[in-house]
């Protein structure tokens, strides 16, 4: 069994994995980080989205071995010291979920979007989120929540990084 060193939400983990194991399986079954969900196994639903060096990837299609040494951020890593990420606040505030199974993937993708585009319009949001399925079809509220988070987020400081933490 290959042993990998994974950097997840700022902590280093030595993980024994199967050969060809996906990052999704390593996170869920080895590290018990189950906020990242399985939905389709073919990169079509977005439920398994995590950030790899700040960029959203489908962890079901990402071999765990390819992520060694990179910063992995999962939904569990967005909360800071008990303070929710503005997107997490906004999803609660706008009731942008029904069963909630797609919610972590949506929030992680949106975190990357807001980092790239701090104040996206509805069309930009729909484009960025198109790879995510909410089978309960709470789409209008998810768009609303992302817009709310964008306008609530503290403005980036001049010359500084984004004020909202979107990557490890």
């Amino acid at each position: 069994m290959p042993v990998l060193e994974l950097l997840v939400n700022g902590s280093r983990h030595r993980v024994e994995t199967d050969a060809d194991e996906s990052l999704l399986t390593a996170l869920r079954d080895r590290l018990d980080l189950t906020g990242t969900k399985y939905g389709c196994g073919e990169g079509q639903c977005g439920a398994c989205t995590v950030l790899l060096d700040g960029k959203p990837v489908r962890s079901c299609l990402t071999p765990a071995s390819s992520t060694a040494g990179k910063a992995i951020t999962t939904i569990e890593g967005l909360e800071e010291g008990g303070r929710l990420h503005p997107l997490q606040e906004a999803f609660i505030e706008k009731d942008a979920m029904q069963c909630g199974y797609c919610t972590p993937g949506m929030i992680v993708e949106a975190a990357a979007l807001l980092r790239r585009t701090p104040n996206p319009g509805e069309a930009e949001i729909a484009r960025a989120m198109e790879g995510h399925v909410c089978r309960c079809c709470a789409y209008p509220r998810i768009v609303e929540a992302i817009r709310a988070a964008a306008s609530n987020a503290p403005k980036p400081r001049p010359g500084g990084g984004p004020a909202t933490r979107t990557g490890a």
Partner: protein
Amino acid sequence: MSETRLPEGAELEPERYELDDALPYRFAVGRRGFIQLLGGVVVLVAATPGSSQESGRAGRAEGQETDLAAWLHIAEDGSVTVFTGKVEFGQNARTSLAQAVAEELRSPLSTIRLVMGDTDLTPFDMGTFGSRSTPYMAPQLRKAAAVARELLKELAATQWSVEAAALEVEGGEVRHAATSRAAGFGALTKGQKLVRTIAGEVATTPADRWTIAGRSATKVNAREIVTGRHRYTSDLGPGSFAPSQLLQGKVLRPPAMGATLASVEQSSIESLAGAVVVTDGDFVGIAAKSAGEAARALESLKPKWNLTAQPEGRELLDKLRQPPDGPREGRGGGPYVVGSVADARDKAAHKLEATYTVAYIAHVPLEPRAAVAQWKDGRLTVWTGTQRPFGVKSELAEAFHLAEDRVRVIVPDTGSGYGGKHSGECAIEAARLARTAGRPVKVVWTREEEFRWAYFRPAGVIDVKSGTEADGRLVAWEMHNYNSGSSAIRTLYDAAHQHIEFHPGRSPLRQGSYRGLAATANHFARESHMDEIAAAAKLDPLEFRRRNLKEARLRAVLDAAAEKFGWAKAKSGGGLGYGIAGGFEKGSYVSTCAEVRVEPSGAVRVVRLVAAFECGAVVNPDQLRNQIEGSLVMGLGGALFEAVAFDRGVIQNPRLSGYRVPRFSDVPRIEVMLVDRKDLPPAGAGETPIVAVAPAVAGAIFAASGQRLRALPLVPQGMPKAKA
């Protein structure tokens, strides 16, 4: 550890679902000892009779304690726990039911805890479907809470020697204003145990005086969801069991439906060191330390199968028109006939007939079927996401020849179902593997397994014949639904002569419940046909409906939606079309208006949907809007492009890349109008809003293009090419 078990007496029946027959024996089960253990105040609510409901499978109330609907417990520390057999699948029952209790107990929402869908702890419940949590369970809980509140007042009155009438309950306390005394619920119980059972009517707070219920409330476990901390069944893992104990299971699937296992090469089984292999009748499964290991071991097996003849995909409509094998009793319910359709049509000025079809569609719950099973001291516990915890408990008891009280099913809040999770296949699979493994086993279906081995919303063929007078008065209405179901098959339009009938069909695929059931199919046919008559008679679709509709609640939503939409001024043309449809189901009423753009390329886009919805008194307006919006968008999938393709027992598009579901870019502008009838009891709301979407869109496509599409999905590949 390696074990091979060849078929033994105990036979698994993983396909036992959708059976209409009852168990041969019905054994009584004693009152659960659990209630005896509770101290403090316990209020038991007796079930009301006659609550039979539509299910994916005949209800198995037998052998269960069906005399109670719910119970409520106030512990000595003042904590309030409500026990209900309902489950949370995204329809927000956990929050809305807690609101109902908080209202009557005059307590903050955060102090109410719900235990849901645990067959050891909660009363028997048929299942969470049919939009019944709000109209039926909420009033029961309301009653329990009202009785508990009055009981607490009596306790305080005795302890303080004051009149109970002089007491108020507020903020989770009983208060006596004159003497400024106040006490929490727990303190008042003083370690006594008080049990009350209520069977009759109990005065509860009328809807117009609600302060907690009937208002928007944040989902009680929203924080767990957005942080990824909530554990769905598929997330139960080492954190929930002793580390290194839990095994993951995979089950061998046949190459096609109807195939049975001929043999599995013995040598291929024995080589799988480290895995637990179970072969038992047609069941072959493997449990291993990781799902990957189990899957690889499964792939190394060399099974041989006996295939059976299965219909070709193109035979579908013929098969649906054929009666099913086996007894027909209890199915279909017979025709509804008034007057003579044939005579009335002979005399009618306009006669029309048309056939409408709907495809099989898949529920695609984003969390696939999942179960974790554990055997301990001859008792089986299964955590699984099912809408019928007690039904699945019965399935497990039957599959393993156990007494019902040896089985416990626990349903964690689940990643959606829409009627697609009534059955216990996955629970049985995990339990079978766990029994041999002697350790807990988790089975999570892949998306492909969901598409291939779950069940579908039925496909259907619907024939409609009508007769209309020259003045636009509908006089004859005949409708035959083959296979898809009888929900909302009756028309609310006035027609003096009617013949309406559901005919069970010979479904080539496994089929079951779906959000709104057959109401979507029946509304598509009925409302599309109403549109066709209106077009033939050169009448406005809304005006034609109004001329033939006395039902006030349906008229009200049609008018409300039309007004909000601007129907009177909406003139189709230039590729834009407008459609309207109305409907009813589960005691609630909906009307949907659609604006659709048909591009010269044939691409179809729904630009705007306006829905007016009336379900009696509104319990939680924001959550209701969320349900309606979700229902409308979900309805667009089945209306426009969702369809399961099959051929000779094999699903042809068993992946999300081959089965299109609505996405962000498919979402139109949506406006929802709630018609709040505080004078009426709340009715079911999670399903009805879906029923008028397809006919409204079909009407709008006709208005934009002149093409009448009579098959759902309407435009899986854009507008169909005009026939030569």
